């Protein structure tokens, strides 16, 4: 193991779902103490803490966590980066260790979303009896619903439809079948918020949210936390055989935002920044997408999963529909995608998601995924995207101890 490489030493996630009796700090603490124990270290070993909780971005969740489990005076970075918050926290810890400022870092993401309902949309100044221009567009009335939609299910529905317009082959049923896959996968994941298998018919006849996304095709709002301890290669060499043998190499860590392109400020372009992140990640890791044994990608909606097959280079350009139809992304296929159940079924506690998907991949690479283990997994990729936009891609590799 090279001394300047960075590794996951310990990692954990809470069960995703409803945790009415646990607050943000309780959930963050559970995941963090789990990650520390998994890595065989304590807060005294940690040199930097990066933490995020998107809907409570001003709460100082990092310091609250320290007060709950151990205040050692280390620098804390509270981060917020939309749905890429967890990946951003991980990358902050990664960069601190990579730079040599410390040899061990901790990243934590936590969110409580149970019962949150529909997120975003409805940016509506109050109708106060007179038409008065307000805000950046000089709008005299709420724009959401009058000039297109701001709701996430509607925005991502259009992103999937746009792919269909460009390349053909999409349909309501196709998108529903992607959801069918992820819900099926989740039945093997005890940490998933939902472990219920849905038939295609059930998915297509469930409540329509924004065509073609019905309710089970949308990410599941739930509570959860995830945490990871990262360590530099030089430090890892000094640790026990047990710690070294379970360490997982971070072969690539990339964060991108979207470069300007026509239309990107009208309908978010989630494609280009994901393509850029993936390309950089494959170069950093020196691997090809075809080498991946599993992928956890940001299926915030079934319509989003399809476009990311293409964006992550899992298929040829324009070939996402055929790729899915081939069965490649089912857990017994050539490139299993979202064997955890994905955001649609495992759930999407926003800031936790970008570390929980790392946990899923790392757990398979360690051969510890129980009855959902992808046999012999050596290389995996985790992807998240937050609108605005931010895209995180990490490639993880099992190392020979």
């Amino acid at each position: 193991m090279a001394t300047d490489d960075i590794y996951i030493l310990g990692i954990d996630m809470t069960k995703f779902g409803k945790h009415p009796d646990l607050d943000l700090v309780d959930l963050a603490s559970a995941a963090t103490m789990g990650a520390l124990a998994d890595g065989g270290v304590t807060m005294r070993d940690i040199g930097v803490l990066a933490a995020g909780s998107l809907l409570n971005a001003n709460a100082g969740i990092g310091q609250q966590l320290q007060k709950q489990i151990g205040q050692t005076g280390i620098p804390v970075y509270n981060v917020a980066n939309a749905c890429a918050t967890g990946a951003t926290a991980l990358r902050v810890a990664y960069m601190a260790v990579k730079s040599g400022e410390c040899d061990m870092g901790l990243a934590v993401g936590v969110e409580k979303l149970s019962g949150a309902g529909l997120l975003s949309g409805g940016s509506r100044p109050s109708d106060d009896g007179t038409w008065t221009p307000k805000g950046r567009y000089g709008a005299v009335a709420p724009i959401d619903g009058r000039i297109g939609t701001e709701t996430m299910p509607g925005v991502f529905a259009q992103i999937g439809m746009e792919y269909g317009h460009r390349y053909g082959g999409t349909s309501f049923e196709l998108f529903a079948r992607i959801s069918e896959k992820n819900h099926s996968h989740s039945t093997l994941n005890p940490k998933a918020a939902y472990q219920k298998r849905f038939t295609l018919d059930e998915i297509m006849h469930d409540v329509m949210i924004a065509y073609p996304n019905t309710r089970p095709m949308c990410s599941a709002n739930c509570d959860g936390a995830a945490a990871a301890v990262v360590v530099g290669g030089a430090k890892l060499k000094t640790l026990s055989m047990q710690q070294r043998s379970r360490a997982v190499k971070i072969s690539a860590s990339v964060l991108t935002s979207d470069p300007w392109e026509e239309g990107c400020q009208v309908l978010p372009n989630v494609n280009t920044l994901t393509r850029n992140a993936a390309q950089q990640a494959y170069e950093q890791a020196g691997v090809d997408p075809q080498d991946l044994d599993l992928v956890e990608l940001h299926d915030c909606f079934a319509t989003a999963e399809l476009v990311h097959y293409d964006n992550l280079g899992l298929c040829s350009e324009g070939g996402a529909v055929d790729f899915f139809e081939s069965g490649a992304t089912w857990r017994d296929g050539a490139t299993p995608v979202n064997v955890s159940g994905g955001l649609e079924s495992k759930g999407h506690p926003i800031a936790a998601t970008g570390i929980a998907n790392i946990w899923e991949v790392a757990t398979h690479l360690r051969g510890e995924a129980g009855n959902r283990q992808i046999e012999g997994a050596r290389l995996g990729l985790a992807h998240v995207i937050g609108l605005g936009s931010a895209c995180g891609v990490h490639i993880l590799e099992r190392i020979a101890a």
Partner: protein
Amino acid sequence: MTRQTDEEKSAVVQIPIVEYLVLGEDPHLEVNECVACHARFFDRRNACASCEGVAFQRTRLQPEGEVRAFTIVAFAAPGVPVPFVAALIDCDGTSVRANLIDVTPDAEHVHLGMKVRFCTQSLGLDEGGTEAVGFGFKPLA
């Protein structure tokens, strides 16, 4: 909204739902276009997000376009009437966000690639008698 006589209607003051909607004889959408690279923005920019140029000109958008993406929103924030069709319309190379109107909001009546035309619609009068005007795109017959 109260009913009005024709004389009263002609006296009604109109206000656009957003500043980039230009009313008058020939209503249309107008964008801030970067003089250097022609990138287009619906609101103001201090510098062009594409090339960092600082000179902009008002440019009128084509009224006809093609639906590049759509969704039929069935579940929205309180007060938003559903279902409605939200779409991304390609107006001669410029992406425009709008509702599709004068179309049945279901998958049998809305299609990718559908040709549509810009139109305005009244949003009603306020207490002072000012009429707000919104816009959308309707199918070309």
